[in-house]
């Protein structure tokens, strides 16, 4: 297996037990990382260790198991906070990106957005950064408008400026598109939005797992991401919010943990971020996410990024030789993350995915939860190969072989 020089892929692959498995008798070539990544042994071990050694409910415990579980859970919060350059008490653990945007919708939006207000999203958003704002607009009598994209797959900055001129209350936009791969200039866009008086909600689901993110330099109000896309367990993610905003917000879910005192007719709330973590939290998986952060940090996110750029360059080069294959998104690899969405002749993405699966290759096919973007691109579906640090040039060669086989079957 060829090293990309950025990282030692062969060594890294040994950390991921699933990569040893075969699919239909072939080596597993896992290229569906934008949907969810695989987990290193260290993350799996952190779960086993938790359940085998110090499982307990947190916070309200006086006993030793409880103290240990609380320390590990809060320790994980600290790791996640530092990993993205946030500040203490600004990190709320949630199920994932989708719960994060919905939390903002309910706890910030229902309080702040009024009838007639304007909300903005972009046409490259994942449904999780669209549907909450649609529902909020409907509940409040507000309007949701979309910032379009340019033919090369970037945000249409002119339309952005024009729509910001209409004094929106909110701008919801993604740090990195899960279809186009486009990396947006978050600091710049958020600054513009703030000048226009808008609050910003940034979807970091495809950025935090793939390149260094330093929120202290990005000037955003809310930032959301999912643990399962960054080598962590399913069921955990984070919402980072400005402390002043979090403190001013209504609570989200109500119940244990988030309260200070419960009276018959009202209750008072716990401090931020606990105010937003009602009920028993996902203790084990938060700790597992902390372990994922440790693993990524030990490799170095700059190395992860470098590796993915090399894979991307190699993939574009390799796939450019396949006749009839069309890649979406910006040209320059520096402007995009490690994923490639494409269509191949008239072979439907599902059919391609089925044929590739037989070769042990896992890609995603479909609308990628981005139907408004699909309509922009005038397609109903695309295929998508997405990388992480354990992918190699070999994986891309296998992908090309698989596509060629589909071409033969479909007589392209």
């Amino acid at each position, binding site marked *: 297996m060829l090293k990309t020089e950025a990282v030692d892929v062969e060594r890294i692959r040994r950390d991921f037990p699933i990569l040893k498995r075969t699919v239909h008798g072939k080596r597993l070539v896992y290229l569906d990382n934008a949907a969810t990544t695989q987990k290193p042994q260290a993350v799996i071990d952190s779960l086993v260790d938790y359940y085998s050694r110090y499982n307990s409910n947190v916070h309200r415990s006086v006993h030793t198991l409880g103290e240990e579980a609380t320390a590990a859970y809060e320790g994980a919060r600290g790791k996640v906070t530092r990993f993205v350059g946030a500040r203490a008490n600004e990190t709320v653990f949630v199920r994932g990106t989708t719960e994060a945007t919905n939390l903002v919708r309910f706890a910030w939006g229902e309080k702040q957005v009024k009838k007639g207000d304007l909300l903005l999203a972009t046409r490259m958003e994942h449904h999780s950064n669209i549907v909450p704002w649609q529902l909020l607009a409907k509940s409040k009598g507000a309007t949701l408008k979309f910032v379009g994209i340019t033919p090369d797959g970037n945000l249409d900055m002119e339309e952005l400026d024009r729509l910001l001129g209409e004094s929106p209350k909110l701008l919801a936009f993604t740090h990195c598109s899960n279809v186009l791969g486009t990396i947006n200039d978050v600091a710049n866009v958020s600054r513009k939005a703030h000048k226009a008086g808008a609050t910003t909600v940034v979807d970091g689901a495809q950025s935090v797992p793939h390149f260094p993110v330093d929120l202290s330099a990005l000037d955003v109000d809310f930032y959301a991401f999912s643990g399962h896309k960054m080598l962590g367990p399913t069921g955990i993610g984070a919402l980072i919010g400005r402390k002043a905003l979090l403190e001013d917000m209504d609570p989200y879910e109500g119940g244990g943990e988030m309260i200070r005192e419960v009276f018959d007719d009202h209750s008072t709330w716990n401090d931020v971020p606990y105010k937003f973590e009602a009920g028993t939290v996902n203790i084990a998986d938060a700790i597992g996410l902390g372990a994922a952060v440790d693993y990524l940090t030990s490799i170095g996110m700059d190395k992860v990024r470098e590796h993915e750029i090399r894979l991307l360059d190699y993939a574009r080069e390799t796939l450019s030789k396949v006749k009839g294959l069309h890649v979406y998104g910006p040209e320059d690899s520096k402007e995009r993350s490690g994923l490639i969405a494409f269509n191949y002749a*008239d*072979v*439907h*993405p*599902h*059919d391609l995915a*089925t*044929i590739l*699966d*037989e070769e042990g290759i896992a890609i995603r*096919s*479909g*609308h990628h939860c981005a*139907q408004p973007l*699909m309509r922009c691109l005038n397609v*109903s*579906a695309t295929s998508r190969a997405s990388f992480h640090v354990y992918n190699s040039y070999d994986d891309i060669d296998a992908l090309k072989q698989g596509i060629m086989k*589909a071409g033969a*079957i*479909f*007589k392209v």
Partner: protein
Amino acid sequence: MSSADIYRELILDYYRNPRNFGKLEKFDISAHDTNPLCGDEIEMQIRVGENSKIEEIKFSGRGCAISQASASMLTELAKGKPLEWVKLVAKEDVFKMLGDPELGPSRVKCALLGMKVLKTGVYGYLGAHYEDPEPGT
């Protein structure tokens, strides 16, 4: 069974040259559905003739070879049959029609989308309700 068997000549032919593709000017039954899994969509329209026969039937939509070929073949099979026949169609019939390909659960949904739309439309016309045995994603 390999994908070369799934994507036999016949399926590809129906995918690229779908029979009964299009819309009817006049119709008595119309139904539409999408597969939330993937966004595949199928619309079917039926003109009902004498003795409650399927006089004319057309489908439109977009999606994978399996969903489109399956819908197209189904319209051919249905044409001329009494509406009651639609109630008797089982998923096994659809698989047989497609040459009994070995499909994973998600692709089974592609194969059965046409049948679901056909049944939804015809059951509704007959005053009944078609309950998808495996709804959702």
